[in-house]
C-alpha cells in the first residue's frame, strides 16, 4: 500500500516534469512547473523531510511561480516557433547511456533508510546525541544548518537579515503618508 502511494506521487512528479517541458504555451509551462514543485514538496513530506518540503512549497511553488510569471508579463508570452537544430542524435544515444550508468552506480549505494549504512552508524547518532546539549536548539536540522555549519551559512543569514530590513522598509508606511495620499 505504501509503495502505491509513493508510486502515485512519483508518477505525478514525472508527468508534471514532462508536461512543463513539452507544453508550448509559456504561461502554462510556468503553472505546470509550479505544480511540479508542489508534488516535489509532497514527496519530501512523504519521505519525512518536513523542512525541505516547507522550503520547496514556499520557494518553488509559491515564489518562483510568481517571479516567472512576472518575467513573462514583461516579455512576449509565446514561445517562438523554432527549428530543432540538426545533429541531435548524440544526445538521444548519450543521455540514456548516462542514465543507465547512473542507475548502475546507484546500485552500490546503501539502501534507503538502511540502519547499517555509514551515515546512519556514525554521523546521525552523533548529531542526534550532541546537538541539543551543545546548541540548545530542539530541531536538529536547524542546529546543523545554523550552528555546526554557521560559517557556511553566514552569508545566507546575512541575506535573510537584509531581506528582513528591506521588507520592513517597504511595508513600513507612516501614518501621514496614508492620509495625504
Amino acid at each position: 500500500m505504501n509503495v502505491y502511494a509513493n508510486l502515485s506521487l512519483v508518477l505525478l512528479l514525472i508527468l508534471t516534469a514532462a508536461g512543463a517541458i513539452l507544453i508550448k504555451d509559456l504561461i502554462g509551462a510556468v503553472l505546470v512547473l509550479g505544480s511540479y514543485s508542489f508534488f516535489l514538496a509532497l514527496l519530501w513530506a512523504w519521505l519525512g523531510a518536513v523542512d525541505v518540503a516547507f522550503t520547496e512549497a514556499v520557494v518553488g511553488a509559491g515564489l518562483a511561480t510568481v517571479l516567472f510569471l512576472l518575467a513573462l508579463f514583461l516579455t512576449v508570452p509565446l514561445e517562438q516557433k523554432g527549428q530543432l537544430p540538426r545533429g541531435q542524435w548524440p544526445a538521444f544515444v548519450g543521455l540514456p547511456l548516462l542514465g543507465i550508468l547512473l542507475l548502475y552506480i546507484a546500485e552500490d549505494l546503501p539502501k534507503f533508510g538502511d540502519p547499517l549504512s555509514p551515515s546512519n552508524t556514525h554521523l546521525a547518532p552523533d548529531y542526534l546525541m550532541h546537538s541539543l546539549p551543545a546548541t540548545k536548539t530542539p530541531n536538529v536540522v536547524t542546529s546543523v544548518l545554523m550552528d555546526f555549519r554557521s560559517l557556511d551559512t553566514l552569508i545566507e543569514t546575512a541575506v535573510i537579515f537584509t531581506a528582513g530590513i528591506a521588507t520592513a522598509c517597504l511595508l513600513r508606511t507612516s501614518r501621514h503618508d496614508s492620509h495625504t495620499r
Partner: protein
Amino acid sequence: MNAFFIGMLIALALLIVVYLYRVIQGPTVFDRVLGLNGISSKAIILLVLIGTIYERVEMFVDISTGYALLNLVGSLAIAKYLEQKRGA
C-alpha cells in the same frame, strides 16, 4: 485505518491528474490558474493527510497553513497582473 488513509491519498492523487489536464490543456490562462488553485487545495489536504498517517500532524499543518497563505498571495498577484495586462 491507515490503509484507508493511504487509499484516500492515492484517490486524491488521481483527482489531481484531472486538474492537471485542465492546467495543461486549458484554453485560456484563467482556466490554468483555476486548475492550479484546485491542485493546491488538494495538496493542502494531502499534507494534513500525510501528517495524520505519520502521527505528526502539528508539523505538517504548519506547512499546509504556510502554503495556503502563499497560494492566496500568488493567485491574487497573478489575477491582478492578468487584469492589468489584458484589460489595458
